């Protein structure tokens, strides 16, 4: 359209903008609900993992007034277990994302800023990890290094950074061509200063949107890893619940009350982050803008 261009003005708070878009609002509400439930839930309905019964009558029982969501294969309350499980799933997702985003951003910044051997090498390494099939890679790493809370976080964080690095890099490259960066460089600013003071703030919104999406991916990865029997066996997460449920044959016995709650928990959290991330992406990426 060649009519008068309307200058884009960016209101200060991104989350306010996300809230104004129905999909984004749905995402924020979902996340709010899960967050409150995971924080408050276990306080109101405490869960004791050692509360195991040996009587067959208490095992894999359907929902009742005693156990709102039935019992698991050890006779424990599924409702309380699901509330507690949220904490670990969220925590692993957030911590793994912190590693992934930090690593991805640094590598992306350096790969975009330095065009010589450093940039090329970093990009080749990124492409290499990008091409490796993610789940098999996570599986063998977890199988080799063992099953624990911290190893799960490390494995997911250290394998999911390449997409962030790519996105950041291409943004840095286009920024680098801008005149103001050239001018600052010619004034003798150090590379570190140019990156930290002039480039990073401009890439930050993009990193922001990406972070939200990476959290969703990390929570899915944790659940999958735990489901495959590679989670921390002594801690309860949604993934480990589904693992023990599967191994105990809950699906074949039709014990939906055991498999449905933790799975729905994963879906709601992941959907919440995905909706929010998708909306942020639409807001920040002019190419995707709906108008």
């Amino acid at each position: 359209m060649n009519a008068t261009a309307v200058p884009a003005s960016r209101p200060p708070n991104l989350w306010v903008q996300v809230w104004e878009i129905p999909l984004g609002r749905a995402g924020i509400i979902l996340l709010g609900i899960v967050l409150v439930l995971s924080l408050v839930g276990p306080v109101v309905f405490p869960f004791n993992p050692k509360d195991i019964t040996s009587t067959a009558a208490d095992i894999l029982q359907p929902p009742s007034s005693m156990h709102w969501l039935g019992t698991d294969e050890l006779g424990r309350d599924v409702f309380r277990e699901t509330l507690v499980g949220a904490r670990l799933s969220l925590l692993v997702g957030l911590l793994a994302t912190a590693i992934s985003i930090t690593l991805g951003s640094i590598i992306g910044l350096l790969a975009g800023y330095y065009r010589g051997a450093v940039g090329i090498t970093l990009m080749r390494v990124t492409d290499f990890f990008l091409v490796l099939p993610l789940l098999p890679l996570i599986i063998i790493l977890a199988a080799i290094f063992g099953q624990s809370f911290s190893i799960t976080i490390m494995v997911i964080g250290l394998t999911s950074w390449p997409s962030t690095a790519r996105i950041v890099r291409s943004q840095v490259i286009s920024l680098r061509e801008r005149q103001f960066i050239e001018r600052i460089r010619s004034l003798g600013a150090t590379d570190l200063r140019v990156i930290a003071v002039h480039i990073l703030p401009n890439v930050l919104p993009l990193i922001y949107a990406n972070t939200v999406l990476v959290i969703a991916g990390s929570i899915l990865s944790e659940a999958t890893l735990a489901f495959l029997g590679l989670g921390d066996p002594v801690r309860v997460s949604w993934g480990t619940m589904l693992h023990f449920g599967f191994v105990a044959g809950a699906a074949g016995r039709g014990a939906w009350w055991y498999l449905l709650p933790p799975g729905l928990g994963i879906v709601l959290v992941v959907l919440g982050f995905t909706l929010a991330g998708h909306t942020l992406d639409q807001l920040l990426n002019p190419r995707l803008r709906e108008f």
Partner: protein
Amino acid sequence: MLRFGLVLKKAVQVIITLFAVITFNFLLFRVLPGDPIRLIARAGNLSPEAISRLRDLFGLDKPLVTQYFYYLRNLFTGEFGMSYTYRRPVIDILQERIANTVILLAAATVIVVLIGVAAGVIAAARRGSKTDQSLVVTSLVFWSLPTFWTGLILVILLGVYVKAFPVSGITTPGASFDSSFARLLDLGKHLVLPTITLAIVDMGQFMLITRSTLVDVLTEDYILTGKAKGLPFRRVLWGHAVPNALLPIITTTALYVSLVIGGAIQVETVFSWPGMGRLMYDAVLRRDYPILEASFLFLAATVILANFLSDIMYMVIDPRVKEA
């Protein structure tokens, strides 16, 4: 018509990447604390003679660099060591499993690509409409489903409560078939639930990528030219927009291979489908490292080759690449 030099350059890159994967794999499984023989075959489960034979085969007494060359030599002769659970050469086990995974992935891929692309085209063509919005939301929901959990829920719904389809394995155990058609039908029934699971989860992403690519293409000048020619919108869409959107979709398909392999591991686990994925799951539970190592190498090589193929296809379809 393909430019030979360009293909050659891509091929060299692929070979370098393959070597990088092999080296990465070697380092991962060798530079670990403890006795490497533990990783190649769990000591105690094999006879001392077998262990010493493996030691020789992999040069485990020699320095790391020498071990690397032993390793390469073994790879090229198809020697991946012995599985300690199956007590058979890893390569034989892999060969049995690959076909089953290919069947499953082929069935799922056809559905994912057809429905995903069609839904993406419809959404982009009616951008901003109710149809578009519901397709986008559905895709985002599907994307958020954990594959294994979707499988478990389908098992409960369609396998246990409705009893519509078998929920485990690739054939009915103990069944004898009068004809190859009956055998095929049985295989088909076993395929239904795993395929639906894979398709549901991966379709969303395909739809979203098709949609965003097409939305981009629909703003191009040649779309206006098509309309100015008096073509109805559906002809402009399928005749001009979709062919241009195909190129990014091909690239997506290559990325999808990596995604669907992850999906296959989960689906095969849930449905006891005797493919590479279930093999990896069993190997994880029993810490059968030789199987894990070889499976990873095989899957990584598959993804790398899929990317190479998509690059070549890109060159065939896009007239601009041939000249460049």
